[in-house]
């Protein structure tokens, strides 16, 4: 899409040429959930402290608004931090393809038979990469943008057929 952007791409670091590989895909997050919690918490405490101060001075209707705002800050934290640590780890070794997906609080581990897995690229609501086994389907590459997903799918496909 933005091929015109002259941006150094993050390399998809497939390990050695021949054998297996291990790949971890994370979203870009410049702050840890704990760090963000501190920022939101400090703000909420400041707003509540100001509200309490006014309540003591008789103007208690500031406090409910500070409370509402603290809730909004909390919601922002939950919404953001839930997915801040999402990752997908894809490992190939000894004929097995292992996919570990952490999404919000849940983390799941899937084992697939590498010889019977197909890599499909679908074009519904943007590009999606799906691993199709005999019984199950598994979406991967959700933390990549469209262009990187295509390159990822091509490379994965190549590796699986070695």
């Amino acid at each position, binding site marked *: *899409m*933005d091929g*015109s*952007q*002259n*941006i*150094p*791409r*993050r390399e998809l670091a497939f390990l050695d040429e021949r054998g297996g590989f291990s790949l971890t895909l994370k979203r*870009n*997050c*410049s*702050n840890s959930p704990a*760090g*963000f919690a501190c*920022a*939101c918490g400090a*703000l909420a405490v*400041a*707003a509540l402290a*100001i*509200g309490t101060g*006014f309540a003591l*001075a*008789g*103007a208690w*209707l*500031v*406090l*409910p*608004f*500070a409370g*509402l*705002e603290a809730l*909004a*800050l909390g919601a*922002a934290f939950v*919404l*953001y931090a839930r997915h*801040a640590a999402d990752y997908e780890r894809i490992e190939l070794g000894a004929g097995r393809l292992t996919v570990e997906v952490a999404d919000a609080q849940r983390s799941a581990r899937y084992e697939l038979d590498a010889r019977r897995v197909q890599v499909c690229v679908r074009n519904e609501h943007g590009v999606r990469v799906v691993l199709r086994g005999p019984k199950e389907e598994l979406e991967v590459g959700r933390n990549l*943008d*469209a*262009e*990187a997903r295509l390159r990822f799918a091509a490379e994965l496909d190549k590796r699986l057929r070695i």
Partner: protein
Amino acid sequence: MRWITTTNHKDIGTLYLWFSFIMFSVGGLMAVGIRMELFSPGLQVMDPDFFNQLTTMHGLIMVFGAIMPVFVGFANWQIPMMIGAPDMAFARLNNWSFWLLPFAATLLVLSFFMPGGAPGVGWTMYAPLTVQMGIGMDLTIFAVHILGMSSILGSINIITTILNMRAPGMTLMKMPLFVWTWLITAYLLVAAMPVLAGAVTMTLTDRHFGTSFFNAAGGGDPVLYQHVFWFFGHPEVYIIALPGFGVISQVIPAFSRKPLFGYASMVYATSAIAIISFIVWAHHMYTVGMPVTGQLFFMYATMLVAVPTGVKVFNWVATMWKGSLTFETPMLFACGFLFMFTLGGFTGLVLSLVPIDIQVHDTYYVVAHFHYVMVAGALFAAFAGIYFWIPKWTGHMYNETLGKIHFWLTLVFFNMIFFVQHFLGLAGMPRRIPDYPLMFETWNKISSLGAFGMGLAQLLFLYVVIDCIRKGAPAPQKPWEGADSLEWTHLPTPVPYHTFETPPVVK
């Protein structure tokens, strides 16, 4: 339809900017009405009550409808591009934050058509006058609630974006100063806005639900309202000014072809201004009768603001020192800002002194002071920012000659309006009056003529912008030689609809 449902930060930025221009025009027309009435002594154009309604709405609309949204527009356009993020953290929330604004603005304007008209209480909405107003007051209170909600949602979004979505390598101390000033502004908004919401809610319950927070008739305390309002009101000044400082901190280095002098001290000075802004509020109310200790505390605290502000002015000048300067329109506005804002800062220092303030409290000296801060400070910074980034946004260059003419006209007319108001204030002319003694006539005539000129000059600005969008010459990726933030170095002109879906790596 695209514009109603859009969640793209660039679209929403554009919406904010146009909304702000519309409100700037509405508020500007009100100012022209005010200056028409004040052109001559005596009452000629309107009755005094309507005059009060105009001053009130002019203030509210300019502060909440024009100046704050213009900088939120900048934030939406620039912050994701400057930190290498694909969009704002909460894109749908961003859309809601914007669409609350036209709704609130409609309520404000509608209040003119209510029985009793718009509230004529001044933008500060002091009790107990607010208790006596008609239904227009309730619309205004509701509008302020909505505006506050929009600001809070917007700030939470900005904080989340800046803290969490920076590109790899974009550490906090590498962020462009514009981003820093917005981070601090968002903190200020989150801390101050509930106080405003509380203040107007208590006004509402005093009016309709039998409480007596501020109504002395029921045992309440009108001075408490002033404390509550100004606890919000003074940080609000910096909410308006800080993003402007940020814009100036991008523009001056670009046209000096030098990095910003004293980057770290700029960050610390901005934070210091933000913190001090919470302990100076009572300098707006020296005359309500407070203990001398209180007056002294607020006087010294207020004078303290001059230290970090002085650091900033020094750094801007030092950035220009021995730089290879050119004076395109953005730089002209930045220099105009530097001179005029500093003047406004100095009169602020004068007003911080209790013995002087007691003399000039509620006179045109105060009006002159805060217009130097709001217009020559914030508005000039906004113009600087628009001329600076419009090539990036539209892909076209604006007409440089017309831009320069716009600057000079604005500068001259601005000083014509407001410089003379210092004299009026020192001579004792009170603010918020539609009539005045004959001795004030000359300066008022000059001021009014300046206001009409200033209004016309902004039509030229509108023409320059439309001309730039329609048929400006194509702009290169980096039209300003010294500009060095990511949007200039990494993105083509005009910027694509989606940028930085893969974050750049910042070294």
